[in-house]
């Protein structure tokens, strides 16, 4: 590791806040000396400029470029019309990756939110709630890379008859079941990958749903119990409806995660054995310098997320009205 990079890092850590401090103090010094009318028009933009600038240069402008480049060839110099999109939708593997992304969308989201909800309701009823939540939350801070290595050992497979070193197959051996090649077998591999995703996400859903569960007044629940409702009715008719706003928020987050899924698939199978998803297919095009095609897949990914974008903005506007 060379010294110059280390120095750059130190300069960035100390320098960026200092530069912004100078910008604020120096800029305000100048602004305060301007006529009041100019002050009021100019000041907000002065404050918001670094943030808006960053978001524009590194998000908005690239977004626009991606759309334009999705209609260009791989050298990004010639317009080729819809060719990249036609290529994507007629490429045989595309069906697989679209199907798999749909599987992720459905089962990852339902799995993470569903288990999160069930566990939130269950742990609410025991004394060791905090410990249970910590245990289930533990995979959340673990990177997808480390989680993939963790699960490589869980899924490890040896031919039937030899010693199974994989935890899951050893477990199957205990119940005299033949070992399963989890990541290779076409009937289990997508489910296995999605499960790893669920494993890393349930804790996130659990913690959020649990927080809003605590906000439900116990009087409501008591009243229902006195009226003779059983626990299942209470969960179905009272708790779940009251949690619904939270469930939709968590759900949209999970849907976005599912559509963007990349790390787990890339590390565990890299799309082999028909486990490709949209994001891994895009990355393969990108690393093979098929920039036009990669941009087109990026645009398709973006289009699938637009409904969620609208939902998010609507929800934001509703919240603003209540402020």
């Amino acid at each position, binding site marked *: 590791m060379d010294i110059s990079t280390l120095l750059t890092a130190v300069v960035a850590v100390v320098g960026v806040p200092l530069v912004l401090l100078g910008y604020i103090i120096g800029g305000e010094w100048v602004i305060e000396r301007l006529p009041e009318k100019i002050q009021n028009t100019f000041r907000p933009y002065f404050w918001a400029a*670094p943030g808006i600038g960053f978001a524009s240069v590194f998000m908005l402008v690239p977004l626009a470029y991606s759309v334009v480049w999705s209609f260009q060839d791989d050298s990004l110099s010639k317009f080729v019309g819809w060719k990249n999109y036609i290529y994507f939708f007629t490429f045989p593997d595309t069906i697989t990756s679209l199907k798999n992304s749909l599987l992720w969308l459905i089962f990852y989201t339902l799995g993470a939110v569903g288990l999160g909800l069930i566990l939130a309701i269950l742990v609410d009823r025991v004394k060791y709630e905090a410990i249970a939540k910590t245990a289930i939350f533990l995979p959340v801070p673990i990177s997808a890379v480390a989680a993939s290595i963790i699960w490589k050992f869980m899924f490890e497979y040896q031919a039937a008859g030899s010693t199974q070193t994989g935890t899951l197959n050893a477990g199957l051996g205990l119940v005299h079941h033949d070992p399963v090649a989890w990541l290779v077998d076409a009937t289990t591999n997508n489910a296995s990958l999605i499960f790893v995703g669920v*494993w890393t996400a349930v804790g996130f859903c659990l913690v959020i749903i649990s927080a809003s569960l605590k906000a439900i007044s116990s009087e409501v629940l008591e009243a229902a119990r006195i009226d003779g409702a059983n626990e299942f009715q209470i969960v179905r008719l009272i708790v779940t409806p009251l949690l619904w706003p939270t469930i939709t928020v968590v759900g949209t987050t999970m849907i976005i995660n599912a559509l963007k899924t990349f790390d787990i698939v890339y590390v565990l199978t890299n799309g082999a054995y028909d486990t490709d998803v949209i994001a891994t297919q895009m990355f393969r095009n990108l690393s093979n310098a098929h920039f036009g095609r990669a941009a087109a897949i990026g645009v398709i990914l973006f289009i699938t997320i637009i409904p969620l974008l609208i939902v998010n903005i609507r929800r934001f506007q509703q919240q603003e009205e209540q402020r």
Partner: protein
Amino acid sequence: MSQADATIARSEERATPISALSNWGYRLQRLPLHIVIIAFMAFWLIPTVGLLVNSFRQPADMANAGWWTALFPPHGFTLASYQQVLAIDGVPASIISSILITVPATVIQLTIATMAAYAFAWMKFPGRDIFFIVIVGLMVVPIQMTLIPLLKLFAVTGLAGTVVAVWLAHSGYGLPFEVFLLRNYLGGLPREIFESAEVDGAGHSVRFLRLAVPMTIPAIASLTIFVFLGIWNDLLVALTFLSGSPYKPFTVKITQLTTSLGYGWEFLTAAAVLQMALPLIVFIALQRYFVRGITSGSVKG
């Protein structure tokens, strides 16, 4: 009836069956509940525990017997995997790279975000609402959309393959969510404090540095943890901008080793443990901030 009364009432009701027999009946009824929860806890912990145990075994043992066999003597624990991983060319450098990427990227985006959030929370200007709606929208935009243009931008500006490129990219990606969250937090601070400071003649720079920032520290602290770990754990951005660079971070290095080794990758357990040690320590030490960060981001919105 207050919250406390209700809790007491609830526990009293649970305790009403006085006789020991029905008390046992009540416990037996709850047994499935405990079994389900403990089964989940076990299944969520076992994979990580298995990795941890394996990382202290000889790679050859890992290939011959499952990790649970090491729980019984002879354990055969050793640091061989750690020595082997750290001896691989580029692994120690990649750990340093991860730090060199993560710390500045976190500092850059949070300072810029706090400043922008102040403007959005406490200043009125034409276009503010539209700008902010764009920011809310950008929160969900897949970063995949930006990778190719940014690759080109960094190539043109000579930043390709440097840590600076990744700082800038991460900062751009992180800003929308941070501005959104901090603006909501700052906007929730009492207006009177800012107004009385203004009456006392404090300018915006004083109000920001002496009032807004100190009062926002809890939110900034939670965000810092999140942003830091997000970048530490990132794979896609680093893979795109640094995979061929000498500054590739630990996640990229591990991934390249996993895919290139095929067989005999067992000793990478040690690498995985080293990679996740920091996130897990941070999580366990700062659990409260961690959870608060998650819930404030989603529930209150």
